[in-house]
C-alpha cells in the first residue's frame, strides 16, 4: 500500500477530473477513535459519500458525529481506520490537508472575520490570497460560482452585517472556491429562518447535481434529513446504528434508530392555571449593539402560570428583548413592571434577587464559564445569596450539595460536581444552566432558545421543565425559532418581526401558517396593518 506523503505533489484538478455519477468519492473504513478517559467516540465506523448524493449523518449529541466530522476534516486523527478519496488512501494531518484534497467544511459556529468583507473572508486562507490580493478577479470568479449554485450574497458587504443564513452562504462559497468536492455541513439549518432554510435546501440539491458529495451532520431536525438527503447514516453511541436510503425512512424510524427506543413526539401540556400579571412590558424600545432600533414599542403582559411564546426569525429583536428583561441592555423608551413594581432601570443583580431568571441562548459564552467547575457555575446565581454567602465568604459545602441536587434532578451526565463545565456536552450544559436558574424558583423565567441544538432526549426534558415552571406559577417567556415547539408549549404566541410584536395570539387560535407569515413580514402587507 503506497502512502501518500505530504511531499508528493497533488494536483486537485487532475485528481477530481471525470467524476462519474454515483461514484464513491469518499469512503471511511473502520474509523475508531477513543478519547483519553476511555470514551469510545467512534467505533469501527464505515461510511461513504457518492457523487451527486446528499448523505446525511444523524445522531444525538454524544453519538460521535462531531468526532467523525473532525476526523473527515483532519482536525483529529483516528486511532484506527482509513479514509479513501476515489479509492486512494489519504492521511489528513490537519484541516489544511483535508481542504487541499477537496474536503470543505461549513461550520455551525461560523468561522468568519466579522469586520472583513465577504470576499475578503472567502479569500482568507486561499492560496491566491498570498502576496498581492487580486480582489476584482477573485470577485468575478466567486460571483460566477455563486451564480452556478443559486446563492445571492453581496460580496462587498461586511460579514457582521449579514444574517446567519447569509454567513452560511459565505462559508459554503468559501469551501467551494477552495475547490471542495465533498462538503461537510455541521447542523446546516440550525440557525436559519424557515425562508433561509428553504433556500439552503434548494442550494444543497443544486450542489449535489453538480457532482458534489454533500454530507450534512444533523442532530434532531428529522424533516430536514428526509427532505434533502438521499442516504442517511444514523450514529448511536459511536457506532453506525443503520445506514439506509432516505426513501425507506420516516421520522419515527429515524428517531428510534437514534435514541434506541420508541420516541414520543408530544410533550403533555396540562391546562393553564393563570394568575396575577407577573411582568408587564409597556411600549419598550431598545437598540441593538449596532445602534439600530431592535425593539420597537413592544408591549405585553405575562401572567403567573403562563407561557408567552416569542416566535421569530433570528435577528428580529427577540435576543434584545431577552436582554432588556434581564437588565443586560438599556431601554430607550417605555417601562417594565415586575409584580407591579417598575424595574426598567434596575441592575441585573437586583432583577435576579427579585425573581427574574434568564437562560441565555449563548450557553458557553454567557450562560456558563467553561473553566469553572459545575459548583462554581452554580454559584453564578448564588454568590450574592445570604444563604450561601456569609460575610463575603462562600459556603462551599452548601454549594456542592446544591450542585449535586441539580445534577441529579436534571439527570446531568457528569462525573461529579467538580468537573469543569467545558467537559460537558451541549445538552448536559444546558441542563446545568436550566437547573441552576430554576433552582432559584424564578417568578419570571426568560428562556432564550432553550432547546436549540439539543438532541431529542434533552429537548423533551427541557420542554418538560418549562412546563413544570409554568405549573409552579412562574411566568415564562419562551423564545424559539421553531414554530412547532412554540405552538406546543405556549399559552400565548407573540410573533416578532423587525423589533415589533406583530400580534398576541392565544395558542388555541394560533396556526402555523399565520404565524409563519407574521414572522416573515408578509402578514402585515396583506392586512395593511402598520
Amino acid at each position, binding site marked *: 500500500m503506497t502512502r501518500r506523503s505530504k511531499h508528493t505533489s497533488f494536483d486537485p484538478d487532475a485528481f477530481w477530473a471525470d467524476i462519474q455519477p454515483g461514484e464513491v468519492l469518499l469512503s471511511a473504513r473502520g474509523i475508531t477513535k477513543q478519547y483519553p478517559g476511555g470514551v469510545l467516540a467512534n467505533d469501527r465506523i464505515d461510511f461513504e459519500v457518492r457523487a451527486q448524493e446528499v448523505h446525511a449523518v444523524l445522531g444525538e449529541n454524544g453519538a460521535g458525529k462531531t468526532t467523525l466530522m473532525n476526523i473527515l476534516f483532519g482536525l483529529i486523527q483516528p486511532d*484506527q481506520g482509513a479514509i479513501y478519496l476515489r479509492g486512494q488512501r489519504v492521511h489528513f494531518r490537519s484541516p489544511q490537508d483535508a481542504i487541499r484534497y477537496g474536503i470543505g467544511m461549513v461550520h455551525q459556529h461560523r468561522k468568519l472575520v466579522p469586520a472583513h468583507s465577504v470576499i475578503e473572508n472567502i479569500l482568507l486562507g486561499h492560496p491566491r490570497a498570498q502576496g498581492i490580493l487580486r480582489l476584482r478577479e477573485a470577485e468575478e470568479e466567486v460571483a460566477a460560482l455563486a451564480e452556478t449554485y443559486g446563492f445571492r450574497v453581496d460580496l462587498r458587504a461586511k460579514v457582521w452585517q449579514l444574517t446567519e443564513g447569509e454567513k452560511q452562504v459565505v462559508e459554503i462559497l468559501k469551501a467551494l472556491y477552495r475547490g471542495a468536492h465533498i462538503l461537510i455541513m455541521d447542523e446546516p439549518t440550525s440557525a436559519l429562518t424557515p425562508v433561509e432554510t428553504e433556500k439552503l435546501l434548494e442550494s444543497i440539491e443544486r450542489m449535489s447535481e453538480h457532482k458534489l458529495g454533500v454530507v450534512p451532520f444533523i442532530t434532531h431536525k428529522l424533516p430536514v434529513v428526509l427532505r434533502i438527503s438521499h442516504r442517511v447514516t444514523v450514529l448511536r453511541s459511536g457506532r453506525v446504528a443503520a445506514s439506509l436510503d432516505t426513501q425507506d425512512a420516516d421520522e419515527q424510524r429515524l428517531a428510534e434508530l437514534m435514541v434506541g427506543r420508541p420516541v414520543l413526539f408530544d410533550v403533555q401540556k396540562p391546562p393553564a392555571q393563570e394568575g396575577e400579571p407577573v411582568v408587564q412590558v409597556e411600549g419598550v424600545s431598545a437598540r441593538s449593539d449596532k445602534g439600530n432600533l431592535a425593539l420597537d414599542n413592544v408591549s405585553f403582559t405575562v401572567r403567573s402560570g403562563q407561557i408567552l411564546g416569542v416566535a421569530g426569525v433570528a435577528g428580529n429583536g427577540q435576543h434584545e428583548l431577552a436582554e432588556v428583561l434581564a437588565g443586560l441592555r438599556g431601554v430607550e423608551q417605555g417601562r417594565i413592571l415586575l409584580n407591579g413594581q417598575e424595574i426598567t432601570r434596575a441592575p441585573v443583580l437586583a432583577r435576579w434577587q427579585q425573581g427574574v431568571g434568564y437562560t441565555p441562548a449563548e450557553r458557553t*459564552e454567557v450562560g456558563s464559564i467553561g473553566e469553572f467547575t459545575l459548583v462554581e457555575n452554580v454559584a453564578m446565581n448564588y454568590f450574592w445569596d445570604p444563604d450561601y454567602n456569609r460575610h463575603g465568604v*462562600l459556603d462551599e459545602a452548601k454549594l456542592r450539595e446544591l450542585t449535586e441536587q441539580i445534577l441529579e434532578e436534571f439527570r446531568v451526565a457528569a462525573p461529579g460536581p467538580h468537573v469543569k463545565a467545558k467537559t460537558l456536552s451541549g445538552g448536559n450544559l444546558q441542563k446545568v444552566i436550566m437547573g441552576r436558574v430554576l433552582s432559584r424558583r424564578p417568578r419570571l423565567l426568560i428562556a432564550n432558545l432553550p432547546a436549540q441544538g439539543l438532541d431529542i432526549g434533552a429537548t423533551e426534558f427541557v420542554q418538560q421543565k418549562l412546563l413544570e415552571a409554568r405549573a409552579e406559577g412562574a411566568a415564562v417567556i419562551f423564545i424559539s425559532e421553531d414554530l412547532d415547539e412554540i405552538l406546543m408549549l405556549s399559552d400565548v404566541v407573540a410573533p416578532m418581526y423587525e423589533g415589533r410584536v406583530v400580534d398576541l395570539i392565544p395558542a388555541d387560535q394560533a396556526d402555523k401558517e399565520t404565524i409563519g407569515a407574521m414572522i416573515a413580514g408578509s402578514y402585515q402587507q396583506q392586512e395593511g396593518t402598520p
Partner: protein
Amino acid sequence: MTVGGYRVRILRRATLPGWEAALFSVLALGVGLFLFGFVFLFAGASPMQAYQEIFRYAFFNANGIPLTMSRFIFLALSTYAFIVPFRAGEWNIGMTGQIYMGGLAAYAVVYAFGGKVSKDVPLNPALVLPLMVLAAALGGALMGGIAGYLKGRWDVNEIVVTMMLNFIAFWLVSHMIKDGGPFMNVGGRGEGFTLPTSLRAPTVLGMPFTILFVLVLAGALEFLFARTSLGYQIRAAGLSSKAARYAGMDTTRISLWVFLLGGGIAGLAAYHYFAAVPGVYKIPRNYGEFGDLAFFGIICGLIALGNPLATLPVALLFGGLSIGGRYAQGKLHLGFGVDYALMGVLMITLVAFQFFYRYRIVVEPLAPEPRPSGTPAPSDLASYGGE
C-alpha cells in the same frame, strides 16, 4: 509523527494535578540552568563553580541572604500587584508607576512631619510609620485606580494606560527629587532626602518587617480567590466578562477593585524598597532600576500561573538569582549583564515548559493499518465507484 515503529502524539490535557505542575517547573529550572551553563563556558568560567557561587552567595551567605530577602519581598509584592488584576483578566503593566507614586506618597508623609530637615529629626515612629505605609498603599492604589476606572467604566485598554502612567510617574519622581524639587536631598545630590533614623523600619529575624506583608498577602490573596465572593467574582470576570455581567456582577467595580488592590500592593513594595531596606532609606538617584525590577513581577506572576502561594518560591528564586548572579559576575570577572541574562533564560525555559501544562506527549507502538473491506487496490483509481 512516527519514529522507528512508534507513533509520537501530542495530546491536549484535560486536567493538571498540582504536583505535576511543580515537577515541570523543577524540570524547567534544571534545563534552564543546564543551557545557561554554556554561557558560562563561553565566558571562560566553570558552570559548576559559577552556580556554586551564585547559590551559595544568594542563599547561604550572611551578606547575601539579607539582600536576597529584600529582593524577594520586593519581587513578591510586585508579583501580587500583577496577579490581582490578572485574575480578573486585566494586565497591570503599571507596577512601576504605582511604586513611584507609593514612594512619593510615603515620603510626602515624612515631609509633612518635617522629616526632610535632617536625618536626626526625632519623629514618633508609632505614628508616622503606619501613616507612611498607608500613604504608600494609597498612592499606589490611586495610580492603579486610574487604569481600573478607565477600563471598567469606558473600556479603555488598561495595558496602554498603565504603561503611559509609568512614564508620568517616572518624571514626576525626577521632578520631586532633582533640581530643587521639594523632596530633594539637602546636599542637592539629585536624589531624595534621607529618611530620619527614627523612622527606620523594625526588623523581623533580621529582615525588614515588610516580609510580613508578603506572608500575610500570600494567605489573604489565596483566601480571597479560593473562598470569598469577591474573589469568585474577580475570577469569573477574568474568565468571561459576558458571563459575569449576565450573573449580575458589577464588572466596572471589579475592574476598579483589582487595580486599587494591585496598585496598593505595589505601593507597599515601594515602601519596602525606599523606606525599609537597610542601606537605602530614601528615593535614590537610580530609582529607575527599582522600577524596572518590578517588571519581573509580570513574569513571576505568569510562571506562578496567578497563584499567590506559588508566587513565593518563584519570587524567592529570582530574588536570589538576581543577587547571586550579580555577585558571581563580579567575583568571576564575567561580562556585564550575565545576571539578567541568567534570569531571562530561566524565565524563558519556565514559560516554555508550560507547554506541558496543556499537552501530553504520548509514545505508542504503531498499530497495523486496517485494510478496507471490499476496497480495490488503492492505485486503481478510476475503477472504484459507481454501482
